[in-house]
């Protein structure tokens, strides 16, 4: 606990971390607030439509008779949920594939890496568009979209983990463990996992913002999840599709855009600060000690 607190104090020395942390905390608060929403997220015509921001409706209401602020709380919750599902599942795949490929080597390694390389080389947006057209019904569900996105984002991490395991395998503690009769799964999970976790942490954050971005892109094309379920993407899509600009309902369109920008900036700054913290060389460079 003490260690955590001093780590936190170290990180807050960077103003970017502080800002990112505050933004993320605020968004998390919004997401939690959605559970106390007085309105239903999908039902229409619950409030007068097309009203500008006021005390009663802090971010105005949209043309479908929904309160934009409460819609936003649901949208943030669902978008974050997709991001978390994608990044966690893809990290699990990456850890599994990377460790198996690195530890077993040989043919298994080669096959796994070729599959990984193929998913990396494929232009993921084009493929995602094709797949989500094919599986339109399946992808409409939030969890399934997260799973689909996860499939396209494990390969890079798997490669990094594999190369780390390759070098760890040659270290002495491995021989000691093997000779003392430690089971392979225990060895890999207890001894190797702590070594690869830091790398996973930064790519996890990047992957989250990639997933949120992809959700927005797919929703923009009218693909992806059920358009009546609010996410940042579907909110944006609905506002564009219903011509919010020409109805002069700027608060309807700008809310998801600004929220997404804040979210992307917060996640990016967080990842930069964390990776600088984990790699002391860049830390020194920043203070000018080189």
């Amino acid at each position, binding site marked *: 606990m003490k260690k955590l607190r001093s780590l936190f104090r170290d990180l807050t020395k960077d103003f970017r971390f502080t800002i990112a942390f505050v933004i993320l905390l605020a968004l998390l608060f919004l997401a939690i607030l959605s559970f106390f929403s007085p309105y239903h997220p999908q039902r229409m015509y619950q409030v007068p439509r097309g009203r500008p921001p006021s005390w009663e409706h802090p971010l105005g209401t949209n043309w479908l008779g929904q309160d934009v602020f409460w819609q936003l709380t649901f949208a943030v919750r669902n978008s974050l949920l997709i991001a978390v599902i994608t990044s966690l599942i893809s990290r699990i795949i990456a850890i599994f594939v990377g460790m198996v490929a690195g530890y077993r080597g040989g043919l298994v390694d080669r096959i796994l890496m070729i*599959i990984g390389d193929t998913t990396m*080389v*494929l232009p993921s*947006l084009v493929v995602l568009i094709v797949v989500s057209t094919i599986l339109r019904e399946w992808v409409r569900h939030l969890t399934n979209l997260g799973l689909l996105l996860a499939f396209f984002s494990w390969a890079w991490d798997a490669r990094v983990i594999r190369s780390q395991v390759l070098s760890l395998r040659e270290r002495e503690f491995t021989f000691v463990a093997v000779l003392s009769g430690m089971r392979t799964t225990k060895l890999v999970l207890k001894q190797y996992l702590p070594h690869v976790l830091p790398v996973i942490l930064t790519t996890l954050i990047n992957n989250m913002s990639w997933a949120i971005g992809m959700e927005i892109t797919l929703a923009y094309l009218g693909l992806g999840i059920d358009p009546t379920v609010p996410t940042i993407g579907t909110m944006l899509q609905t506002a564009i599709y219903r011509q919010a600009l020409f109805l002069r309902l700027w608060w309807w369109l*700008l809310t998801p855009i600004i929220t997404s920008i804040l979210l992307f900036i917060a996640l990016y700054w967080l990842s930069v600060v964390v990776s600088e913290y984990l790699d002391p060389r860049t830390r020194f*460079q920043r203070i000018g000690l080189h």
Partner: protein
Amino acid sequence: MKFIKYYLAPRLVQYILVTFLGLSAAFFLPRILPMDPVKQQLAQYQAFGVYIPPEQLEEIVSTLQQLYGLEGSLSEQYMSFWKRLFRGDFGPSLARYPTPVMKVIAQSLPWTFGLLLLTTILSWVVAVIVGGIAGYYRGRWTEILDAIVMVIRPIPYYIMSLLCLILFAYLFPIFPLSGGIGVGIELSFSWETVKSIVEHGALPALTLLIVGIAWQFQSMKLIVQGVRSEDYVWYAKVAGIEEQRIVFHYVIPNAMLPMITQLGLQFGTIFSGALVTEMVFAYPGVGWILYDAVMRGDYNLIMGITCISVLAVTTSIFLLDLIYPLFDPRVRYR
């Protein structure tokens, strides 16, 4: 000989294998689409009021299947897919029958290439120069630049295009909202045509430039900061060589290698790089026709675009691997 065996051969094998897997995926994925193009065509006939007698239905279906290259079992289709691929033939576009897919793509290519070649090269050059100088010298202005880039960098290019669209086409209507050229203007080398094309391309180009410059500026700056702390730069300084000479002859050229890699990778994604930007601005390039193809269930067109993007990406990576040793002798015998 050693070079071929240890450097070229493994990369060639990998290139062929990955391309093969990617293209096969491109073949199988659209075949599972829920939309049946033959049924859609029949529905379209019926919508026009054409009466199809039931006894002829089967014949028409088989004719259509033949036309679309959907006849025979899946494995037969797969074989003929590869045969046709080597001839660069993706069959006719289903939504714009009988225009061949290659022709539809060829019509939209100049738009995409014009837009992306220009923005890719321009943003690369600007980023390398500005990023190089900002990485070497430090001062008030580099801090300001850094702060701006830190904010712009994480914004995805499609959000940026929406922002630009709202700002410069709606709030301050300087540029047209959508399209690649004004309505009713014919393609010719007249002043009016060129003006219209530039006006319509300006906004998509602007968004791509902002994002591209911010992204590459940062990597160039980091690389230059790394090179700056190398010993030979220190020695050059001690030897009394002018600062300007050090920057432009010592530091920037040595920082170029990773940047050249980035440029090469970007050339590979030119084909599929700005799909969403094109969709946002209804710019008549590859992104726009892909959107159209997805909406209309045009198998052949989706497949054609996917195949070409896969080929472009894998080939550019392979070519980069090939020319890399020319730039960096350290790679040559690895």
